């Protein structure tokens, strides 16, 4: 039985990054739960992303972190230092009686480290800090190196976070079944009709990672010309409404009846429910792709700019990624090829792109392009041996 009381030993995972990162933290939560079945397990993440983890059932509590309030207190310090400090204290206190036996910080920035100190058991804090950091350091260094050098790493970020938490991946992708009750009325028909439903993430967090809206219009037009029973659901944040509108305007009006524009119209929970009703999610924005895989949808990603399949590809089995050969904005897009993959399960390469399929094994997720899977597995095993030797030994024993 897991402890219900705050007095019992509990562990906390801190993940302050964006949507995709919170989803990619779930395998670590899954593994931690298996490794420490008698410890309570909580996650602290940005308040608006709470729903992702809350619906997963992989932790007991999700503690919401509201960065905008901290901004406000920092600004107000000059005139009301005492009040600001008090409110900050109350905010920390409102998260619960924080006295965690262990705190895992997945973000390598000062804020995360400070939060870890604030949430840790004050008696153990000083003694244990070094031990925790010692264990996480090789993985933290590995991730920094990957970010810096973009080397030939093959360990997925979600699995590297497992390593940081001192656990091995479970070899399965987390799944979550979101509640379906609160989809807006005019979107309720999504997924109801027969046919192939594809969710399409029109934007991306950063401009250089966005697919041109004209390309999306062409993709939809090609897809719908091949599948009479095809349906497309445009998804994205409020900031991507214009992009959604531009994609729609690029379509012949006869086809628009097959396209639902949900950009900027759903909460995170609603987005999960909408995705749950689709068969595929397609896009360049890794966040929605990860949310799609979390609700059991197959994902197909176009990875370019800084996005790399081996680090942040969709987690699980049977997902696809077209990886651009360069870091520049691609000149051509695998439109026909990706549609053939979705509609006919037909794999075909495209100029300037390589095609990767995801698999799961004891080291987590991996991607192959049909050329060197054994070598890849050996590389990952060696990497785990080098970064977490004790963990590998104890698992072998």
């Amino acid at each position, binding site marked *: 039985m897991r402890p219900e009381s705050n007095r019992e030993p509990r562990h906390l995972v801190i993940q302050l990054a964006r949507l995709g990162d919170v989803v990619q933290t779930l395998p670590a939560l899954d593994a931690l739960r298996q490794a420490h079945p008698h410890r309570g397990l909580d996650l602290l993440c940005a308040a608006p992303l709470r729903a992702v983890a809350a619906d997963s059932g992989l932790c007991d509590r999700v503690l919401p972190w509201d*960065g905008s309030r*901290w*901004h406000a*207190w*920092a*600004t107000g*310090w*000059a*005139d009301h*230092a*005492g009040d*600001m*400090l008090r409110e*900050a*204290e109350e905010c*920390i206190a409102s998260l619960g009686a924080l006295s965690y036996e262990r705190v895992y910080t997945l973000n390598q920035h*000062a*804020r995360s*480290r*400070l*939060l870890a*100190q*604030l949430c840790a058991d*004050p008696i153990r*804090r*000083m003694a244990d*800090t*070094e031990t925790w950091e010692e264990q996480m350091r090789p993985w933290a260094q590995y991730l920094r190196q990957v970010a810096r050098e973009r080397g030939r790493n093959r360990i997925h970020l979600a699995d590297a976070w497992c390593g940081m938490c001192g656990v091995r991946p479970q070899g399965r992708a987390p799944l979550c079944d979101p509640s379906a009750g609160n989809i807006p009325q005019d979107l309720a028909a999504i997924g109801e009709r027969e046919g192939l439903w594809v969710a399409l993430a029109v934007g991306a967090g950063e401009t250089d990672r966005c697919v041109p809206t004209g390309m999306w219009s062409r993709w939809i037009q090609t897809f719908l010309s091949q599948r009479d029973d095809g349906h497309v659901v445009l998804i994205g944040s409020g900031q991507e409404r214009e992009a959604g509108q531009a994609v729609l305007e690029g379509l012949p009006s006869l086809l628009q009846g097959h396209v639902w524009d949900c950009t900027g119209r759903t909460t995170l929970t609603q987005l999960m429910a909408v995705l749950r009703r689709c068969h595929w999610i397609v896009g360049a924005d890794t966040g929605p792709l990860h949310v799609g895989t979390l609700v059991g949808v197959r994902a197909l990603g176009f990875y370019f700019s800084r996005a790399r399949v081996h680090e942040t590809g969709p987690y699980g089995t049977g997902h696809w990624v077209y990886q651009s050969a360069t870091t520049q904005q691609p000149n051509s897009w695998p439109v026909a090829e990706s549609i053939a993959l979705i509609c006919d399960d037909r794999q075909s390469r495209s100029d300037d792109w390589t095609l990767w399929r995801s698999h799961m094994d004891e080291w987590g997720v991996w991607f192959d392009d049909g050329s060197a899977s054994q070598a890849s597995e050996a590389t990952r095993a060696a990497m785990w041996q080098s970064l977490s030797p004790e963990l590998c030994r104890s698992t072998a024993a």
Partner: protein
Amino acid sequence: MSTLHDNITRLAARHPDLAGSVTNAAGGVLTIEPARSGAPSARRAGRWIHSAYDPLREAQTWAAAHASACRPGETVVVAGVGLLYHVEALRRALSPEIELAVLVPDVDELQDALTARPIVDWCAQVHWLSGTAEDIAEQLRRSGRPLRCLSYVPAASANAEFHRVFEEALRRSLARQSGGQLTIALVGPIYGGSLPIARYVKRALETLGHTVQWIDHSVHAASYDVMSSLKDGRNRQVMQGRMANLLSQWTLASLAESPPDLVLSLAQAPLTLPMLEHLRKKKFLTAMWFVENYRHLTYWQQMAPGYEHWFVIQKDACLEAFRQAGARHVNYLPMAADPEVHRPLSLSEDERRLFGADLSFVGAGYANRRRLFPALLRHPWSFKLWGNEWEGAEDLRSVIQLNGARIDTATCMKVFNATTINLNLHSTTGEGLDPQADFVNPRTFELAACGAFQLVDHRSYLSECFTEREILSFRDFGDVPATVSQWLGDRAARQAMAHAARERVLAGHTYVHRMQDLLGQIGLSQPDRVGAILRGERQQEVLLTRCGDDQPLQALLKDCPSGQRIELKDVAARIRSKGPISALRREELMVLMLDEYRSETRDLA
């Protein structure tokens, strides 16, 4: 009982002297007429000072626009009486912790107001300030409360001079009492006349105890100059424009390194309008001292909305033109001298021979100078012409020094000191004297600060800066030769006048004085930001007093050096220096967390 009697009775409860004055006043300043809404409205000298349709609604709109900026603990001072609709509306819009005061420059106007309409419950919640502008300013300063000045322009404009004197007195008193240290980013130009002024400003701000981050663009002058060699004008313009953009971004990047309390630019500072708008979005406070003739250099028309505060060297039409162009705050701030640089020198005989003359002029060869100066040749006294851009002035060749090379400040000071009479002729693009001779150039103050005798062309603002016993001026260039002859023969009179002029500069026309005024003005319009810092409210001692019995905060503040301004980043830096975060107390961790968010607040990326 009349409305006037009732109102005066209410006023007398807290302001018996003012009530007495109003009783004895003649009134008749305002013409009262009913507005369309039925409420009384008023005209002054034929101009409506309240709405002819609905003065109540108009006042509520005005009050709503200003109330949101007012902070608890402040005293809001309103200029403009009229029928007091705006005062009533503002009082109702403000929370009780905010004091409201009204300037009463004219008791006749107040009597008209008290006759026209009843002032009821809110009267007791307003301070009525009468007397001289200086006395009122002093009274407000002594209150020690942060002041925020608002103007109801339609009513205030009739007493513009009173309000100007009041604001100046207030600004000066704020400047005098200021004990706080600001961090000011000073953005200088790439080259030109405002570059040395940027240096004087820097020294003045540092003298006042502020920290200056000088963003010095003069280091890029050589590259900018190289582009001038491009023969194709369009290419030259494009390249120099791109470089200015790049330097603008460089400025932004420099500001992001350590966000200041104020970004102060000097004329020609390479900051583009989009960059200024970005700074404004990020809550940076910006100001520009435009030390140029606004009629000649006109790029301010595009830049006016970019800066929060403009300071200009001309008044009246200039101020109005800036406002029309979108400047939110624009104030007059004349030029000055830097006594560290502009000072009397002991020169050797050789130096006196080399740099001296009976009459000298230092400056560039503008058209009016080329046209007028030949009249100074062939006189019994010697004449020397220093400076550059005299190419083609053949008739002046015999008096041009150093082949018309640009001279540095040190040489310039030697010329000023070695010359018997320094001619100071303001530049203009025309052929004679400046037809719109208003502002006083820096040379006037610099010569005076050197204790050098000068003869200057008359300017309309000259009498505000110097008396006739301190500066000798001429209105007709034809009078110059005779004036020179006359004063060359009276050494004692020259020395007395030069000495008096120097004393005047030291007493009121240095860059230190100007920066006090500039910061005082910004402090007045930003009482909760710059004003609070200038009043010393961010000093460690004041913060300690304010935090009362908050023990954890007291402990944090006591760790910081006394006599210093303490901000969140300073407390955080102190905590960081203690060692690893695992050893820190809870409140210390909290401060570090707040500081992490602070550093992101004005992130300019």
